[in-house]
């Protein structure tokens, strides 16, 4: 089994607020991330596909194809967007890095036809990242 990883970067804004909680509770749980005008990050996404190299091409999957999938499924939906207002899949959810990683997993998993999606690693900052392995782990 070979694990192939491709990296892309996108920028987006968000803020954390749960309307079911009081303003004080929101402030206590989410701290400065609760600031209603939002803030942004340069996210770094690493997508890992597991598979066996094809005998005729030597590739797990064509990197060009993976690049196109990442552009269409991730970049076009998330880059330079406000995650609270412009991403339907996050509606009703707090746009934490955890929920965003799961959302990206759900975008990509059905689209990876050669090999299988092994891991989505999403960096919100150099000192903070989330891994999603699907429902398996």
């Amino acid at each position, binding site marked *: 089994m070979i694990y192939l990883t491709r990296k892309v970067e996108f920028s987006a804004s968000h803020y*954390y607020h*749960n309307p*079911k*909680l009081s303003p004080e509770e929101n402030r206590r*749980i*989410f*701290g400065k991330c609760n600031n209603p005008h939002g803030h942004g990050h340069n996210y770094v996404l690493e997508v890992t596909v597991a598979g066996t190299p094809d005998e005729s091409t030597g590739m797990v999957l064509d990197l060009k194809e993976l690049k196109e999938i990442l552009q269409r499924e991730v970049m076009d939906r998330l880059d330079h967007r406000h995650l609270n207002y412009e991403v339907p899949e996050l509606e009703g*959810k*707090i*746009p*934490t*890095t*955890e*929920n965003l*990683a*799961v959302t990206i*997993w759900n975008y990509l998993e059905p689209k990876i036809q050669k090999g299988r999606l092994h891991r989505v690693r999403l960096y919100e900052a*150099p*000192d*903070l*990242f*989330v*891994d*999603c*392995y*699907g*429902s398996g*782990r």
Partner: protein
Amino acid sequence: MNAHLTRRYGFAASHRLYSARLSEDENRRIYGKCANPHGHGHNYFVEITVSGPIHPETGMVANLTDLDTFVQREVIEIFDHRNLNEEVPAFREEVPTTENLCIEIYNRVRAFPFARLERVRLEETSLNSFEYAGEPSGVFAAGETQETAR
């Protein structure tokens, strides 16, 4: 769906790799310049990975403030700007290699109450790093049972 959350922290500490159970020559042969009697130091970076279901109310595996507070108390305050051999009880007998330090940090962070500890990854320099994810299930430390191990 579960997610794994990783946070990176830094601390600086000094150590000397030297075992009292070995002769001077053996220490010198095994540990090389790391056995110099006055020790030396590193800027360590440690990555703590915790996992669990994403809480529907907060969207989080664990609140970073809770994790930061816990790691600050259990790791940073214990090791930062310390001499590991002289000031950390765990290394009175054990050699403070990065392997042993990684396991010591794992054992300290395992008590984090809000998510499951998956892995500790410790960088001694930008060129070498060590990971510890506990023992495979069925292998327990002395005095532990399956119930107390997790």
